[in-house]
């Protein structure tokens, strides 16, 4: 910044204040942009279609319509089951393989790790049809198992990458101390590495939960109507000739709540896990 001749430049304190306020203003704008959809959703969930058109007045009409047309409870349960099963598989695979990639010396470790990580770059949409064919051949379409397996397969590469990075941050001496203390690698993993990686496990859980819970495509493709997840259910709600926006908003609100709750619970771990490996 060139100082104007004859004019004193802003004092450093004042300049800091201006910056702080400018930053604050920008953050407010961003917050409004991010939160407005939530507000819109919450506001319009409590209207009837007529009230929605007029944008005035509130009622529970949207909710009664939602519950009348959609087995909300059972679909929430379906979502929960699919999520839990997929995340369980992801965690088991990613923690053990992440530990192996980080701490065990075996032939081809680097190459295999590279392959796993490169799977991160494959978009779901490009493999969904072959995936469907595969599962159809195994007779796993139209069941929880198919969707769970697809979610697990999609989530595992990133989870493995994250876990391996985390385990690399654990000092080799710690693992060796356990080995010398008389544990094999299996028990070293279970007793030392796993408890120490709780922040990373929390991170994987949250990220995968949000991803799987919010996903629509896999749920629609691989689950029969009776076992649909809540997102797939909501999609069918809008597929009819008339779409009741308030009912849709009410459903969206319900389905958003678990993701928000999970996020809030694990928030602290999440930040810790994501910034991990950035130097200690």
């Amino acid at each position: 910044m060139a100082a104007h001749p004859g004019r004193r430049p802003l004092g450093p304190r004042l300049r800091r204040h201006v910056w702080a306020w400018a930053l604050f203003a920008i953050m407010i704008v961003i917050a409004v942009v991010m939160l407005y959809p939530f507000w819109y959703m919450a506001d319009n969930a409590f209207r009837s279609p007529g009230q929605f058109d007029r944008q005035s007045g509130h009622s529970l009409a949207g909710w009664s319509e939602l519950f009348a047309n959609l087995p909300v409870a059972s679909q929430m349960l379906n979502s929960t089951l699919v999520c839990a099963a997929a995340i369980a598989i992801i965690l088991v695979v990613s923690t053990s393989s992440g530990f192996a990639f980080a701490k065990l010396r075996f032939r081809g470790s680097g190459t295999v790790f590279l392959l796993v990580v490169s799977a991160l770059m494959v978009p779901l949409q490009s493999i969904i049809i072959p995936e469907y064919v595969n599962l159809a051949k195994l007779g796993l379409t139209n069941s929880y198992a198919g969707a769970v397996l697809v979610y697990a397969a999609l989530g595992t590469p990133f989870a493995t990458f994250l876990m391996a990075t985390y385990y690399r941050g654990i000092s080799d001496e710690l693992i060796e101390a356990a080995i010398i203390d008389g544990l094999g690698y299996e028990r070293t993993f279970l007793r030392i590495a796993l408890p120490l990686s709780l922040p990373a496990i929390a991170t994987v859980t949250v990220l995968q939960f949000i991803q799987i819970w919010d996903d629509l495509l896999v749920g629609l493709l691989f689950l029969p109507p009776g076992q649909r997840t809540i997102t797939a259910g909501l999609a069918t709600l809008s597929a009819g000739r008339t779409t009741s926006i308030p009912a849709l908003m009410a459903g969206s609100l319900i389905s958003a709540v678990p993701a928000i709750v999970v996020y809030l619970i694990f928030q602290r771990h999440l930040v810790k896990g994501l910034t991990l490996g950035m130097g200690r």
Partner: protein
Amino acid sequence: MSRIELDSVTKRFPDGTTAVRALDLRVGDGELLVLVGPSGCGKTTALRMIAGLEAVTSGTISIDGVVVNDVEPRHRDIAMVFQSYALYPHLSVYENMAFSLRYRGARKSEIQARVAEAARILELEPYLRRKPRELSGGQRQRVAMGRAIVRQPRAFLMDEPLSNLDAKLRVQMRAEIAQLQRSLGTTTVYVTHDQTEAMTLGTRVAVLSGGVLQQVAPPTELYRRPANLFVAGFIGSPPMNLIDARLERGDGGPLVVFGPHRLRVPPSVLAGHSGLDRYLGEPVVVGIRPEHLADAALAGAPPAGPAGGPAPGGPAAGESVIELPISLREELGSEVHLHATIGAAAHAGAAGDGDDVRSLATIVARADPRSRIAEGTIARLVVDAAELHFFDPATGASIRDG
């Protein structure tokens, strides 16, 4: 209680570097053997091979006469103390110490008794419930020791256990480790890069350089009779002055000549170094410990009289006194280090510590603090010629017996 033997142990890493070359070592029952050397000399690799954390490329390692090359670390019954302590951060001090016993199937009452005993010895009783992060560096070090001793293993392996402590604590813990080891009588292999630590702790000290064992001996012998130039330069602080010189025939016996200086080799030295005869007229590396250079004014030496030679007057006069310009005077309180420039080359191959950076043609004298020799003056220094060391400049080996 046990013996550890290494027979021609070599470690070659997949990238082709040889970390340890044909290492032969015997660690006696109850002995504390220190492996010392500059970083990258292979000492830690050697220790890790004994622990079973590194595979042996060739040669054999045996514990109590049983070859353990293919025995898993957990079945070798040894405990290791790591440089970083490697305490389990999620476990309390008690659990850290009990950890190994628990997985070895010890009974709960026995675990409690042993941990309590170790905690008592190491004065860790008030901290048993704390997590490692709530402890100071010295306390963590103690927990690491405690974790090793509760196991009552056949041997302790210690990998630079004190290098993360500050200087004062290091000295204190060094003494504690020495006492502990002596009272327990457990065979111990201790790795360090610090020659002072090696000298003060070791029953015997093994000096390694470039993966090759240079010498194994009790500390005093290592200091007084270094086997080669590396050991001579590595052990001792400030290090031994090593000077490129020639051995020449003088009237009253051989003379060491470097630059304008001439030192008479006393008969006692000749008797102890019969191999010297062959070097007459040849280049040698002469080694002088800093404490064997003294202020002539305080040593009571006559102005031009030899202290070690029987030749008063004549051309041989002053053969144990050298006059050198002093470039630096360092006060240490109990002693004074005088840095002097010599008119000859310091031996270039002298292997210092790495952190002992001294300009080449400079030697250091450890003088009495009463010495009044000042910087920038020419000082008269008496050389204790009876304590001269001689090395072959080509092989670096100490010249002793013919």
